[in-house]
């Protein structure tokens, strides 16, 4: 096998692997990517019921209701809009009223959301960045301790 043939073999192998990887990435991108919206954006952008998405905002104080079998329902608000979230399961350690959360699930209609997970991702100041940005966008940002609010 000559040097040239060898090089061609290698390039062909590299292109094959890269092609497969690219295909996988594109397929995975199509099916496994979830958009994030705040309650106000759901109304503004006219998100269709049945869409899988992430919802973020503050848990409205006094809105948490607990039912049987770990059913929890609470209102997520970004100041300009509100959505009621229903969730069955255990809430993360950092879940509390007035705090920011991100829930992933399916939008049932403009005002209600069925979550299959409630996330506690946060930085040291306990505010999910997506939520902080959404609140700033709606003009309801007050937490001055937040590092990146400057």
């Amino acid at each position, binding site marked *: 096998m000559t040097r040239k043939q060898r090089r061609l073999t290698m390039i062909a*192998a590299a292109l094959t692997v890269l092609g497969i*990887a690219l295909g996988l990435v594109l397929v995975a*991108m199509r099916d496994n990517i979830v958009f994030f919206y705040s309650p106000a954006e759901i109304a503004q952008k006219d998100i269709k019921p049945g869409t899988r998405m*992430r919802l973020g905002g503050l848990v409205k104080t006094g809105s948490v209701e607990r039912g049987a079998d770990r059913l929890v329902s609470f209102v997520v608000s970004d100041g300009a809009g509100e959505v009621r979230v229903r969730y069955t399961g255990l809430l993360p*350690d950092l879940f509390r009223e007035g705090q920011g959360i991100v829930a992933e699930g399916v939008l049932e209609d403009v005002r209600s959301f069925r979550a299959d997970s409630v996330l506690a*991702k946060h*930085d040291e100041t*306990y505010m999910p960045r997506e939520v902080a*940005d959404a609140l700033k966008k709606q003009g309801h940002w007050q937490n001055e301790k937040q590092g990146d609010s400057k």
Partner: protein
Amino acid sequence: MIVETGHYALVLAFALCLVQMVVPLWGSLTGDRTLMAVAAPVSLMQFALVALSFAALTYAYLVSDFSVLNVIENSHSQKPLIYKISGVWGNHEGSMLLWVLTLSLFGALVALRAKRMPEDLAATALSIQSWVLGAFLLFILLTSNPFARVGAPPMEGRDLNPLLQDPGLAIHPPLLYLGYVGLSITFSFAAAALIHGRIDAQWARWVRPWTLIAWMFLTIGISMGSYWAYYTLGWGGFWFWDPVENASLMPWLAATALLHSALVMEKRDALKIWTILLAILAFSLSLLGAFLVRSGVLTSVHSFANDPDRGVFILAILVFFIGGSLSLFAFRVQSLKQGGIFAPISREGALVFNNLLLTTSCATVLVGTLYPLALEAATGAKISVGPPFFNLTFVPLFVPLFLAIPIGQLLAWKRGDILGAVQRLTFAVGMAVVAGLILAFARGEPVLSVLFAGLAVYVIVGAFIETWGRVIAGGYSPVLMWRRAIGLPLSQWGSAIAHAGAGVTLFGLAATGWGVERIVGMKPGDNVNLGPYIVTLEDVERRKGPNYVETAAHMTIREGGVVVGKLDPSRKFYAHRSMTTTDAGLRTIELGQVHIVIPEQNSDGSLDVRLYWKPYVTLIWIGSIIMFLGGGFSLADRRLRVGYARRPREPKVQTAPAPAE
């Protein structure tokens, strides 16, 4: 006073960097040996100064000096001693100090061994290392001074984030940094080689041990971090494809590829361009990781509270070093001559295949990590790329890699016999099928777990086929076999052990499919079935710790009526930060673990309990320790061998390619 000394030592270290950035480099370009001789002692002094500075900050933590802002923000006088120490690197400023300490440590280690390499290469590499060190020292001095004082010291500190008060934090970052930052020395060598245009098998022989050290610590650091997440975060998972985890995985993948391509370069003088490029990329990915964690572009439990200036500064460092090294690379690449020829089916071919899959999988992780950031910057849309994405892209690339590992180990250099290799693997395949059948009977669904466990057994057994063949080459007499076994090069054992370790980890990952998860409300006296066990909640206790209040559940695990273990999962409430953490109860039974957390106490007094039974889960981390040991064996061998490469100051040093391992 001591605190100011620490700050001053950092400034001095930076001044030494300025000297080191120019003098040895100039010396190596003009051939002035006096100037080159500056490099080694200055590197040692830099290390001493940075170590002094680190010691000063540690001292401030130990005596709870609350006139130092960093100590106020991250410590508390009541905190246990170990967390006072680990608190030093549990925050942005202190962890940067650990980062530069590691940078200067590697510089010093190279300086100590500089006599074994050509003077100009060592001097230039140390000079480049000082460029990196200087950039990060400047970053600390300008944006993240850990020694800043406050005018009116408070009586008490704000305490370390409770999530970080854990033995895992005490060891995970230093190990990880040894890995991350260890890649800087490979980078410095690559840049030095490009500057001098001396890129040959000899270069690979000097650089491979450093890559190996970095790789070993990166392996163990990532693995300890994953174990820490597994038992402290209370989510029962050990890998979340979190961007910060990805930031450590990418350099690991690149370093793994680099180890293998440097082997080809060392033995066969081939793949030179590729190896140099990988050395640059591996450290670039480390820098990218530093940027992602510290710039505030992402949210993660790992990220530090951020300041946009720091992000811009690190981005500038990133652009300077990646851009600079790649320009140098582009400038030199024409002059590189390709070396040894090999057939596609050969040891080299197998290693190329390994590199192809490792770098491609690294690229998919990069895409999955950066795409959301890029999309947000471009369109403002926020998306999340979660585990499904990575499972779909990363896993299919790793399956062929694992299939190829044992085959590659059996191929000869230059031209291999793939049919012969496959034949020699009959035993490994047989073992895999037997193990798969046993597991299919014993554990059943899911099919994927059975298949992956079988693949793991094939990798583990296959890893030792070559070694075994050599051990029995002189016959089956135990004495003879023992003699041959200890006569084999340590690196041969190292390679077999490290690959088997990868198989062991794969087995642990495969077995996650057999796990059981239950979420139930329990009152004292209640029982719950968990896989083969019955778990009883005995009682619930409230107790007070040094800086928290704790609710602990006492639970007993029984198997067929016999007590096999007791567990006390708990929730801790830290008043200083009004924050709750969950301490999982963990009980290792054989190779599996029972993992119990109590996320909530209901109003009726019952506890919500989340229970997992994870068979073989410990293998995930045991495998990484085996990989680490394998690396150690290989390193021990190398140290003996570096001796005969000692031929400084000869432009065309070329030893005959060593015989195949």
